[in-house]
């Protein structure tokens, strides 16, 4: 993609761009005179923060899968469902589409998100293959879709508030609801810490290499 290699960046022009108000300032400016946010041309601590939040999220994801998400008592019998167990129960009752939504939101999306963030952070640190378009698309998907994982936590909240029918049926949240919510929050922060400008810097590094004698 030769047309993208000759794109002038703010850093090349000796400027720094504000990520809040999109204005350009001389590279020495520290606080954006327009909106007051801190300016950095490239966030050098970005990857460290990405990995830190990523690790915390992964630690929270373990109990989120082991402990029950929901404790349902119906007519004296108590059943506890983990995330995967809940989806299986739904599928057994014939609600395949809902089971699919839950599996997608609580298992597939978080897992892919962990992998995607790790892939981005590793590939940016060691620019071997430069495919910024694909990588940027991946990053946007992680940012956009990641928050939808909260759906399972909200389902637990709704059910435990709604289903209070004395001895007939009642639902209580399990410990996994908290750890799963934390997993989603921490992966969101991890993805937000990632400086997506690093993806595009790979192109310029490559350009510099080819220009070098």
């Amino acid at each position, binding site marked *: 993609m030769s047309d993208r290699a000759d794109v*002038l*960046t703010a850093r090349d*022009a000796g400027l720094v*761009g504000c990520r*809040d108000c999109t204005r350009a300032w001389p590279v020495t400016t520290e606080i954006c005179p327009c909106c007051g946010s801190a300016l950095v041309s490239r966030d050098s601590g970005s990857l460290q923060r990405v990995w830190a939040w990523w690790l915390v999220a992964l630690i929270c994801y373990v109990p989120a899968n082991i402990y029950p998400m929901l404790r349902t008592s119906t007519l004296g019998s108590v059943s506890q469902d983990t995330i995967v167990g809940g989806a299986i129960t739904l599928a057994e009752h014939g609600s395949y589409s809902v089971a699919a939504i839950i599996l997608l939101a609580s298992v597939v999306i978080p897992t892919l998100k962990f992998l995607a963030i790790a892939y981005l952070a590793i590939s940016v640190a060691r620019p071997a293959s430069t495919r910024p378009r694909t990588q940027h698309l991946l990053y946007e998907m992680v940012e956009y879709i990641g928050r939808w994982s909260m*759906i399972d936590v*909200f389902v637990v909240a709704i059910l435990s508030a709604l289903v209070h029918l004395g001895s007939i049926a009642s639902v209580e949240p399990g410990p996994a609801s908290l750890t799963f919510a934390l997993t989603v929050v921490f992966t969101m922060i991890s993805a937000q810490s990632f400086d997506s400008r690093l993806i*595009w810097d790979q192109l310029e590094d490559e350009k510099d290499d080819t220009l070098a004698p």
Partner: protein
Amino acid sequence: MVRQNDVSITAADDLGALVVCPSCDALYRMPKVAPGEDAICHRCHRVLAAPRRRAGMQIISLAAASLVFLVATLFFPFLKISAAGLHNATSVLDVVLAFTNRELALLVLFTAGCILAIPALRMGLLLYVLVPLVFDHPPRPGARAAFRLSERLKPWSMAEIFALGCAVALIKVKDLAQVEFGPAFWMFAGLVFLVLQVQRNLCSRSVWDALEQVPDRDIPAPLREHRT
């Protein structure tokens, strides 16, 4: 559309006429963008500016309406459940309070924050910033900080996710009991729609341009000289 960026940009250029893509750092001369058009980054396709006709007035009315819906949603029954002669009606407030009786209080705060407090805060902040601008008054003190906060809270406003969660919850209990929507559910659906409409009309670069017309006391004087 920003087609090609102009490589002849020099430091002597008027900095206010430039725009930097926040996602990929590409530098452009800000094109004339007519209302209804989008300026899109040439290489990463991020929307840089998307002004809409009479957007200010529309956002103000939508945000005010969504706040009314939000307050109403709190108190009316949201979902009603009945099984074997027993009934229970739940308001959003009950959903939030469902976690209070145990150590999961953190989850309460989080759920309440994402579905009520943050959407409400964002709409309130937008009103605070935009009402003076639309009616040609000087911005309120701290308007810039308020707008920045509102933009950063965007991913944490999860009303639409909660709405889908309601649908899933309904299907989960349909074997157990009959469930029906209360009036607050429809108000909440309205709220989700209004918040999405606000998002569609809001062009943050246009708001920053409007805020920049007026000096702000928040910014230390030495920094102002960069402004051209």
